[in-house]
């Protein structure tokens, strides 16, 4: 392969297509995944290549979609269940958290549930309180589930490909505002292994820990800070389970300062877990409290004026770092 311009959406589609070509146990099952091509266009055209037997359009029956994926995964298929919005986790948590996540353990290791639940979350479309949430914390809080949240085009491809080889259930959360993100990538060039965080931008003054869309927000903040003489290191977690604390801790031990940036609600969210671990593991090296920049503890309002103010911004990161370092 060679360098090509791809969007995040196209990379996801390519990952599905390549994986489905190699492994005919893979089926995609969900609402509008076939003829419609996915609510956000990820599966567009795949039904023409792989047929309606492998791109299974379903009725609007989320618990049965995920539950059927569990059963299929236990009996020889490798289902990719698509949940149109992560908010619909509300409907499927039983199948995901009580069933998929626990089957291997409850049954003494006899069988696993190799399914991938693809979904998307986040703000950015004035879609309101029931279509804009960042619920990765719910997933992280459930042992037995893997969790990937790609921030880049290359990771959209490689993390999805890798998810489709894993023996256990993976929740794969895309970001609705990233689908049109475009990068020049060579998909033949391997990325970091699954479970390893990436250093997107090296720096020695402060560590910014982020994932999903907040990675690019943190990168822009780092760029702006660099113009002021502050060198921020930006870490992209890539997967939240497994969580690569080694890369994070190494960085924080060097910088002595850490800020975790997340689009999920602040309280009891993924950022809280990160801060706890950084504090426990790097305490002697920290020069300041580890801070969280996260979404406000409120439902997401529809009004565009309010929606943008509910999540961390470039300037908020910049200000916070500046003040943390007393500059």
């Amino acid at each position, binding site marked *: 392969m060679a360098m090509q311009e791809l969007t995040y959406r196209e990379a996801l589609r390519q990952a599905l297509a390549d994986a489905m070509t190699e492994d005919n146990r893979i089926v995609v099952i969900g609402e509008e995944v076939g003829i*419609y091509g996915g609510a956000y266009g990820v599966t567009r055209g795949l039904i023409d290549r792989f047929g309606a037997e492998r791109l299974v359009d379903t009725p609007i029956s989320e618990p049965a979609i995920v539950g059927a994926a569990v059963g299929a995964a236990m009996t020889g298929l490798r289902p990719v269940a698509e949940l149109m919005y992560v908010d619909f986790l509300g409907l499927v948590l039983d199948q995901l958290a009580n069933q998929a996540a626990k089957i291997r353990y409850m049954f003494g290791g006899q069988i696993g549930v190799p399914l991938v639940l693809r979904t998307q979350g986040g703000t950015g479309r004035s879609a309101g309180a029931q279509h804009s949430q960042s619920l990765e914390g719910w997933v992280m809080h459930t042992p037995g589930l893997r969790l990937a949240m790609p921030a880049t085009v290359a990771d959209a491809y490689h993390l999805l490909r890798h998810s489709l080889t894993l023996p256990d259930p993976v929740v794969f959360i895309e970001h609705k505002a990233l689908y049109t993100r475009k990068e020049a990538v060579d998909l033949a060039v391997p990325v970091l292994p699954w479970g390893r965080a990436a250093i997107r931008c090296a720096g020695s003054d402060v560590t910014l820990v982020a994932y999903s869309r907040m990675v690019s927000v943190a990168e822009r903040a780092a760029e702006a800070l660099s113009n002021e003489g502050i060198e921020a290191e930006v870490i992209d977690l890539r997967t939240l389970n497994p969580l690569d604390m080694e890369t994070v801790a190494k960085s924080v031990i060097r910088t002595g300062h850490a800020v975790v940036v997340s689009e999920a609600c602040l309280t009891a969210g993924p950022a809280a877990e990160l801060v706890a671990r950084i504090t426990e593991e790097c305490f002697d090296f920290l020069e300041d409290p580890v801070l969280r920049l996260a979404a406000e503890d409120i439902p997401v309002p529809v009004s565009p004026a309010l929606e943008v103010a509910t999540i961390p911004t470039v300037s908020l990161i910049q200000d*916070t770092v500046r003040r943390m370092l007393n500059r």
Partner: protein
Amino acid sequence: MNDRPNMPLPDLYRTMRRIRSFEERVAELYVRNGTAGSMLHLSIGEEGAAAGVCAALRPDDSFTTHHRSHGIFLARGADPNRMMAEIAGKSDGYCRGKGGSMHIADMALGHLGANAIVGGGIPHAVGAGLSYRRLGSGAVSVAFFGDGAMQQGVLYESMNMAALWQLPVLFVCVNNQYGMGTRIDRAAARTDFAERAEVFGLAAMNVDGENVGAVFTAAEALIASARAGRPGFLCVSCFRFYGHGRMDKSPYRSAEEEEAGRRRDPLLTARNALIERGLATTAELDAVDAEIANEMDATIEFAIAAEPPPLSAMFDDVYAPGEVRPEPMRMRLERILACT
């Protein structure tokens, strides 16, 4: 039209025209970049369901709706200015700009809430029915939802409870033939939805939504039955004239199918019936249409001129007034950074 002597057909026509006219303005406001986002679901083609059922409700009755609900709310008597302001995410809107098109509500009119979760509002009507029976209020609650929700489990749990407890509840399926790109025959092996409700013990009917009079008559009978303790189910067949949302150009259905579907126009059918029966002249109906067009034009200007909610409103209404509020993250940071 099969209707009774005192059928309020002129009023039903007016209601349907107001809905059509309003929805056209929503589309226009979207094109003018004045709406909050593009997740706007127009109910053009479904006016017969909204007008027919709502005309059969009492003022003390309540209802919940799905995401395609501008028409139902207007038929209930909503102020189109406040609706349009909500759709624009402005503070003069029914929900102060926080709910938008998909989460609009108005307790004063008994609108217990539109819902962006397919099926999400259905059990609320059951709960309302439970309240009304226990409180002896005599009111009925109606759950409106689309054909897509016919495949959602919560509907069946709700229908069973309503039938079991003989609650004053009516389930109304606005069957516009499609859930996004999925036609009902790709979502269910048997598409006679009233049949399903019947086996739960509900009084169930299918009705043609092109005929607003028939919808009204059926709704009146089923609401009376629900009020007397026999809950009901009404499936109103109609056609979604346009795409699912504003971005959807419906590539999954043929031009012929759309054309045939759009011929099932409840507004045009009612208009022709009024003229045929000598209840109105073309000129009179044109005048009604023009008056409504003016009223609805004004909603656009109202919504554009309205103020967005102030940033401080962001933290209002997470909890009840006077209760402990969420601490804004930025204030919290100030506090922490001040002592480090």
